[in-house]
Each structure stands twice: as structure tokens, then as C-alpha cells.
């Protein structure tokens, strides 16, 4: 019994070692980015603990690309999408959760199709649509295909269904209309779901790249990811330290938010995943 215990103890320590090693490997890209961004470029590939620290790379990166504008674009993009998603998904989810109408189950199945056929797959045809709508190279154009999110509709419907119907009946007796009931009863009670969906949506669209790349072609519309790709392209001839500084600038808001609200983030992603 004792030897078995000892053996198990050793293997447990071995496992913990493996866990820490894996965690270190997982952090390595970020650690390297910090190293290279805060040191002069001659130290970008030379690791010397006594290397001097500097903020010049950040200043350089900030002056070489219109990061301020990219930040503004991404901020606008993420806010527009989130606002539209909240409105569209709330209305649709309410219909699916609490109304009976012909074709409801077919409509719901059709909505779920979008979980599979995401806008990324349809870039070719959506580009054509955007040029017909004259929305190529506009922030609204980047956002439109994502606004009716099947994921959001599904998530909110699940939440709305758990809210006791008696609350709705009580509000109706008080003379509230359907929209008033939605706004005064359902939306406040579904707050955790809105937070969860909001965080998932914001981090998705902050990081999204392919469709924004296709649909934008000027500084006034490009989000951070597309700007960063152009900034970091090898043909632009910018050196490592400045690229990593630019990269850190681009990820900073989300990364800081994540570190501050780590628990909330993790729980939101969990919440969003449990069906």
C-alpha cells in the first residue's frame, strides 16, 4: 500500500511538472512579445537579462501606422454589431420562446443553419451583395452579415424559456404590451446571458479578420486586425521589435480586460458553451 502511494506521488509530481511546462509553452509567444517590444531591436533575438528597457518601439509603431484610427474603427465595429445583435436576437428569441405561430419549428431549424454556415464561408457572395448595396469599404458593411446571430438567438431563447410564465401573466394583467413585457421582465432577468453573449461577441469581432480584410480597403474603415496584418507584412520592412510592439498595442485592450475580469470571461465562455 505504501509503495503504491509513493509511486502515485511521484507520478503526480511528474504530472504537475508537465502541466507547468505546457502552461509555460502556452505563454511563450506572449512572453516573447513583451521581451522584444520593451527592448531595443538589437536584443530582439538575443536574450540578455541585462538588456536595457525602452518604450521607443511603441512610439515607433504608433507613429508608423494609424493605430488610433484602427482602434476607433474596431471600437465602432464591435459596438454596432453588439447593439444590433442584442436587438435582433432579443426579438427573435422572444418569438421562439413564448409565441406560437405556424412554421415556428421550421423557422428555428433554419436559424440554426447559420451555426454551420457562418458568414466566413460566404465571403464571395456577400461581397457581391455589399457592392450592390454600395457598402463596400464601410464599417456597417463589415458588421451586417453578423448582426442576426443564430448563436445569440439560441442562447437567449434558452434563457427566456426558463423564466416563469407567471411573471409575464402578471405584467399582462397590469396592462403591459408584448414589447413592454419583453423589456421589463425578460431582458432584466436574462442579464447574465447578455453579459456572456456580449463578451463572446466582442472578443470574436475584435479578433475577426477574413471578412473585414475582404470588405475594407482604406484606413478609415480597417479594423485593428487588418491594419496589423498590413503593418506586420514582411514586405513593409518594419523590424521585429516594432512589429511586436504594434501587436501588443492591438491586443492590449482585450488582454487587459481579460486579465482584470478573468473569472467573468471564463464563466461567460462556459455559459455560452453549455446548451
Amino acid at each position: 500500500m505504501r509503495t503504491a502511494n509513493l509511486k502515485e506521488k511521484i507520478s503526480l509530481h511528474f504530472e504537475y511538472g508537465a502541466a507547468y511546462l505546457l502552461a509555460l509553452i502556452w505563454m511563450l509567444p506572449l512572453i516573447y512579445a513583451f521581451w522584444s517590444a520593451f527592448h531595443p531591436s538589437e536584443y530582439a533575438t538575443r536574450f540578455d537579462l541585462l538588456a536595457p528597457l525602452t518604450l521607443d518601439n511603441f512610439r515607433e509603431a504608433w507613429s508608423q501606422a494609424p493605430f488610433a484610427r484602427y482602434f476607433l474603427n474596431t471600437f465602432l465595429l464591435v459596438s454596432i454589431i453588439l447593439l444590433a445583435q442584442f436587438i435582433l436576437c432579443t426579438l427573435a428569441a422572444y418569438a421562439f420562446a413564448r409565441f406560437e405561430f405556424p412554421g415556428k419549428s421550421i423557422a428555428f431549424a433554419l436559424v440554426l443553419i447559420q451555426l454551420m454556415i457562418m458568414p466566413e464561408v460566404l465571403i464571395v457572395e456577400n461581397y457581391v451583395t455589399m457592392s450592390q448595396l454600395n457598402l463596400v469599404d464601410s464599417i456597417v458593411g463589415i458588421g451586417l452579415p453578423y448582426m442576426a446571430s443564430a448563436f445569440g438567438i439560441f442562447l437567449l431563447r434558452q434563457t427566456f424559456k426558463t423564466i416563469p410564465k407567471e411573471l409575464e401573466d402578471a405584467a399582462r394583467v397590469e396592462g403591459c404590451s408584448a414589447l413592454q413585457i419583453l423589456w421589463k421582465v425578460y431582458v432584466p432577468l436574462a442579464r447574465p446571458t447578455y453579459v456572456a453573449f456580449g463578451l463572446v461577441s466582442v472578443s470574436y469581432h475584435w479578433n475577426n479578420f477574413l471578412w473585414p480584410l475582404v470588405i475594407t480597403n482604406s484606413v478609415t474603415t480597417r479594423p485593428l486586425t487588418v491594419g496589423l496584418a498590413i503593418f506586420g507584412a514582411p514586405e513593409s520592412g518594419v523590424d521585429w521589435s516594432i512589429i511586436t510592439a504594434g501587436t501588443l498595442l492591438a491586443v492590449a485592450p482585450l488582454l487587459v480586460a481579460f486579465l482584470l475580469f478573468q473569472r467573468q470571461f471564463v464563466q461567460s465562455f462556459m455559459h455560452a458553451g453549455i446548451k
Partner: protein
Amino acid sequence: MNQRRSRFQIHGWLLLMPAAIFLIAFTYYPTLATLAKSFFSQGNAIKPSRFVGLENYEFLITDEVFWKVVGNNVIYAATTIPISIALALLMAVWVNGRLPMKSLVRMSFFTPTVLPMIAVANIWLFFYSPDIGLIDQITSSFGIASHNWLGDPDTVLGCIIVITIWKEAGFFMIFYLAALQTLSPELEEAARLEGASRWYYFRRVMFPLLMPTTLFVLINAIINSFKLVDQLFILTKGGPDNASSLLLYYIYEVAFSFLDQAYASTLTVVLLLALAIIAIGQFVFLDKKVHYR
């Protein structure tokens, strides 16, 4: 009463209407338009587009790049899916257990999820660079010759796969973590009292109980294996000689670099078919396991 019911029905449809319009405009219509366009030739200023039947599909069958890209995508899926799921499960078990400093470990596993692929690709590009890159600096200290990881057709796809696993595993870990926290701790205690080893407990108790989560994660991983191509734009542009190109990246190239929307639509139909097969598979196999309330 009847009047009230019909008003109820109309309200339902009205609430659904805004979302439906968006879904029709940006999901259903483009899906059908893609299918239709795949039967037409690419028009230009001199020659307008015309119906060509299956000509685009005939070209597709003889297109070596297409087969190369499909092959790559199959390898990409067959490696990233099982490895990232296995790692995710391992991570979740570690972080859920008695590991000291586990919140720090959990944070490092999850961090790649909140970073944009484009940004991390910039950093990985440095890791892979010949001579000065981190990997070569480590291997050269062991006396191994430097290697152009991204320039060699034999290693480039592997490099892309590693990044994808790194990016995905922590995301999937979260779902396992959520599921593990619903398992009662008495279960493990009981198993240990019976003398079961940790591995036995994992294999016979924990893993079967996590099956719904595994299936959910699996679907996500499959979709990602078609969708996650951002890193190619920074690291390889699909090269060298299409050795690292994936289907969605090839669609992008055909549509927006070669400006052949008809053929890009044909390629998109293949992608849509693959997704449809997954969707049907999910419907048939998973519906029994994953309950939608």
C-alpha cells in the same frame, strides 16, 4: 378567442421579422446564389457570364491545386481536431484538480483564445524564422542545423497545425472545465475507495460522463478546421507551392486575387457540402445525446 390567437401569431412573426430579413440577406440568399453561380462562367467586360452547366465542376476535378488544398485540409482537420481536444481535456483535468497555482495555469491556457490569430501569427513568425528564430536558437544549442520551417513544403503545414492547436486547446478546455465542475466529487472518492487508479477512473467514469461535451467540442473543432485560416495570411500565404493552403484560403485567393468568382463559388459549394454533411451527421448522431430544451 380566435382573434386573440391570430394576433398572437402575427406578433410572433413580427418579432422574428428583423432577424429573418438579415438571415435571408446574408445567409440563405448567398448560399443559393453561390450554388447558382457555380453553373455559370465568369463574365467580364467583353464576354458576359453565361450558363455552362457542370463545366466549373469538370475544371474542379482536374484542378491539381484544389486536390492539394483538400488534402491539406484533411490533414489539418485530422491532426488539429483530436490533438486539441485531447489537450483540452488534459488541461481541464489539471486545472480542475489540486494543482498548486492552478488559476495561473488556467490563465495561460486560456490566453490564446482572447488574442487575435493575426496578432499571434506575427509572434509565431519569429519562432519559426530560420537561424534567428526561437526554435532554431534552441535546436542549434543542441548542435542541430538550422531549418527554414515555413519555407520547406514538408514542415510548413505542421507549423500551421501547431499554431491552431495552441490557439484552440484553451478554448475547448473551458467547456470541459464547465462539465467537470458538474461531476460530483463523491464519484471519484467512491472509485478510489474501490481501489481504482486515476487512469481507470478517467477511462471508465469521467470520460463517458463527458461524452456530450466531447461531442459539442468536436463539432466546434470540425467547423474551425474549415474556418481558421487567418494565420496563413501572415505566415505563408498558402505557400510554398500551396503546401500550406487550405480550402477557405484558396477560395479567398480565387475570388479576390484571381478575380474568378464563378470558380470561387464552385469551391464554396464544396465547402458548403462538407458543412452540410457535418450538420446531417450531427443531427443523426448527436441529437440523442445533446438535448435542446
